[in-house]
């Protein structure tokens, strides 16, 4: 083939802005489309409404609109609250009311915290050419290790105890990430199947651990761990909102910064990305691809482990088997939505955190099951993964053709 002629111009500022704008446009449209389809699902899954459509389409349309408006209204109110309340509280100088009005945002941030960690985990894996579907299991292992340290050493000062517990959580997840990394590097076992299977193994392991004297809370016969002592607990970030966002968020943001530095400003990240984009060339350049894969998976596991850690040290202060509502799977969507960039992951996590936070009030108001959020999330990733779908829907001309950022290579090595 003849070579593509080189582009002569250097991208100007305006063009960069346009590219940036286009970068935001597609995710925005993807989310919008997913919400519209979600609304459709809400309506179509209501047998009464479907029946009504046969009888009185106009009334049915109105009722559908009311239902969807109520659902999404509650979703928004539950995730970002009412700005009027905030302004009113500020105007009145009522601190308590102000804090109370912050509650939905606080919950959103709380829900975003584990999502940031898990999303970073999957994003880092993507960048390293790996597909980590095992964030869920790694999360549980991290939680197991963290909660152990969290309840085990009463009397430690918090500035030692918290870092120790966090490190333990990282280690636990890293261990669960190391296994698929090691197997991939040494035997060529595809990480997708191994990580999925390790999720199931992790569930059983937690069930088993919570029955042992080491973990089980004395005096309780149900599978619940001992309580994390005060010195290892992550305190709330907004005093007065004890059940909301905690210092785990700060750690998550630090983690995002560290991952960003690691990926783009460090030699290890250079290796991760080189192996992710072209393992063969990386090997030719003297990078030990096997060790890089193992290290990358271990770090990914560690990050996912921190998701469990922040939950047990911050939100729950104990471990039970129902710790995660599927954060590890949301993480895949987050990494795709955030284009595997740490900042993008944080933004996506805030969005998904808001969806999760708003789902409860939505259910309370309209009885629509929380699983709708999962449906919407799946639609979002689908549109993000296949931008051509969205472009086709909205008749947007393709800019520079970019393929998907990750490439799978079958089952072999």
């Amino acid at each position, binding site marked *: 083939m003849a070579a593509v002629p080189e582009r002569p111009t250097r991208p100007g500022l305006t063009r960069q802005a346009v590219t940036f704008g286009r970068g935001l446009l597609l995710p925005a449209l993807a989310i919008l489309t997913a919400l519209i389809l979600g609304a459709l699902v809400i309506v179509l899954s209501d047998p009464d409404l479907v029946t009504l459509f046969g009888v009185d389409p106009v009334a049915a349309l109105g009722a559908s609109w009311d239902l969807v408006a109520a659902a999404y209204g509650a979703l928004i109110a539950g995730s970002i609250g009412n700005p009027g309340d905030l302004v009113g509280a500020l105007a009145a100088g009522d601190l308590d009311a102000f804090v109370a009005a912050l509650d939905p945002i606080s*919950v959103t941030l*709380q*829900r975003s915290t584990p999502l940031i960690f898990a999303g970073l985990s999957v994003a880092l894996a993507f960048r390293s050419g790996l597909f980590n579907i095992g964030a*869920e299991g790694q999360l549980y292992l991290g939680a197991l290790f963290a909660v152990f340290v969290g309840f085990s050493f009463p009397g430690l000062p918090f500035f030692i105890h918290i870092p120790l517990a966090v490190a333990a959580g990282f280690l636990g997840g890293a261990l669960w990430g190391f296994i698929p990394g090691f197997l991939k590097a040494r035997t060529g076992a595809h990480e997708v199947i191994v990580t999925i299977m390790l*999720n199931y193994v992790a*569930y*059983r392991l937690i*069930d088993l651990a919570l*029955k042992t004297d080491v973990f089980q809370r004395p*005096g*309780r*016969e*149900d*599978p*619940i761990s001992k309580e994390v002592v005060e010195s290892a607990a992550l305190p709330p970030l907004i005093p007065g909102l004890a*059940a909301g966002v905690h210092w785990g968020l700060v750690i998550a943001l630090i983690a995002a910064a560290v991952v960003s530095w690691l990926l783009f400003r460090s030699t290890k990240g250079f290796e991760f990305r080189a192996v992710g984009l072209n393992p063969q060339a990386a090997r030719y350049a003297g990078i030990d691809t096997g060790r890089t894969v193992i290290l990358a998976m271990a770090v990914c596991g560690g990050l996912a482990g921190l998701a469990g850690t922040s*939950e047990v040290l911050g*939100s*729950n202060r*104990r471990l*039970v*088997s*129902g*710790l*995660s*509502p*599927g954060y590890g*799977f949301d993480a895949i969507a987050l990494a795709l939505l955030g284009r595997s960039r740490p900042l993008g992951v944080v933004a996506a996590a805030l969005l998904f955190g808001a969806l999760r*936070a708003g789902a*409860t*009030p939505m*259910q*309370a108001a309209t*009885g629509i*099951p*929380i699983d709708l959020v999962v449906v919407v999330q799946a639609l979002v990733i689908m549109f993000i993964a296949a931008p051509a779908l969205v472009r086709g829907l909205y008749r947007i001309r393709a800019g520079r053709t970019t393929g998907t950022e990750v490439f799978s290579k079958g089952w072999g090595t």
Partner: protein
Amino acid sequence: MGTTRALAALVAATALIVGACQGGAGRPGGGSPAAGGAGAGSPAANSPAGGGPAGGSPAGGGAAAGTPLPGAADFKACEVSDTGGIDDKGFNQNAYAGLEGAKAEFGIGEIKFLESTSEADYNRNIQTFINEKCDLIVTVGFLLGDATEAAAKANPKQKFAIVDFAYDPVIPNVAGIVFAIDEATMLGGYLAAGMSKTGKVATFGGIDIPPVRTFMEGFAAGVNYYNKQKGKNVQLLGWDPKKKSGSFTGDFQDTAKGRQVTEGFIQEGADVVMAVAGPVGLGAAAAVQDAEGVMFIGVDVDQAISAPEYRDVMLSSILKRIDNGVKGAIRSALEGRFKGGVQVNTLKNEGVGLAPYHEFENDVPQELDAEIDALRQAIASGQVKPADWYEGAPGQ
């Protein structure tokens, strides 16, 4: 994947609580002792549609069903589930049936429900209902124990009821609704042993947790009691009372596993199976139906009514009247008699029981039925304690 696995309990009181109750502490005096045969005669299925009669609500009282109580129209009762939905054919659904029953019978104004998908939802869901000014918040399952305690202490005026959990010391604004389910499963075990032709009966659980185990231990007690009384040697598969270990499918979702375990039991010769595993139990019932001459014992509700497709194999069901417990709590709150503490639901107050035999009415020998009745009375009066029979005849 894994979101609802900790639906961890369908289920009964913890062994701890059972033990405490049998020690005689805090057994509420309300309710009349069950008359002979009444327990088997009256319980209704707790299908979401029908509230069922109010008979035997532990908090007692004899108000006529269907009469709105004063002040009921403004009353708001709210349920927070654990990580199962209210369609779990298990205790979330059963508790909700209690709410619906209260609405139908007492005419309370509003009932609401929130499903939790994870630990993180518990506090949030309870807080949502506190903000909505519910008069009574019912939390379901021991998983919510901590969250309910925290919320109750932070909001001392808010009334709570929690299913399958009890606090020691008592929290004044929380009523713990617990069940001495082993009393009922002991009857079930006796019935199973008496009906078995192969001399082998079986049970299995969802997740290996105490509330599930209590079912199985009671069942074992019934078999042991039967063997002792009759000098027989009916074997129990799926539960080893001495090692306190048994068959578990590992979750409450994988119905196919329930089926497969049950097929295993049948192949090993068992002909009566009790599954303590929520929906997974229905997989077991399917296996029973596909085999010849095998019977099934349901749990929680009268499954011959709630799962009529398996009526032909449903020997009986172990009833756990969560609905009645919840209704009772609502009623006492309505009538201003609400107080914190433990409400133990027993055979005696008809909080637990054995469902009718339905299709098997004619197959169960008169004699056996009479023996079960006798056992029921012996348990209700405290003469026979299931815990003594867990591992075999006492003193052996």
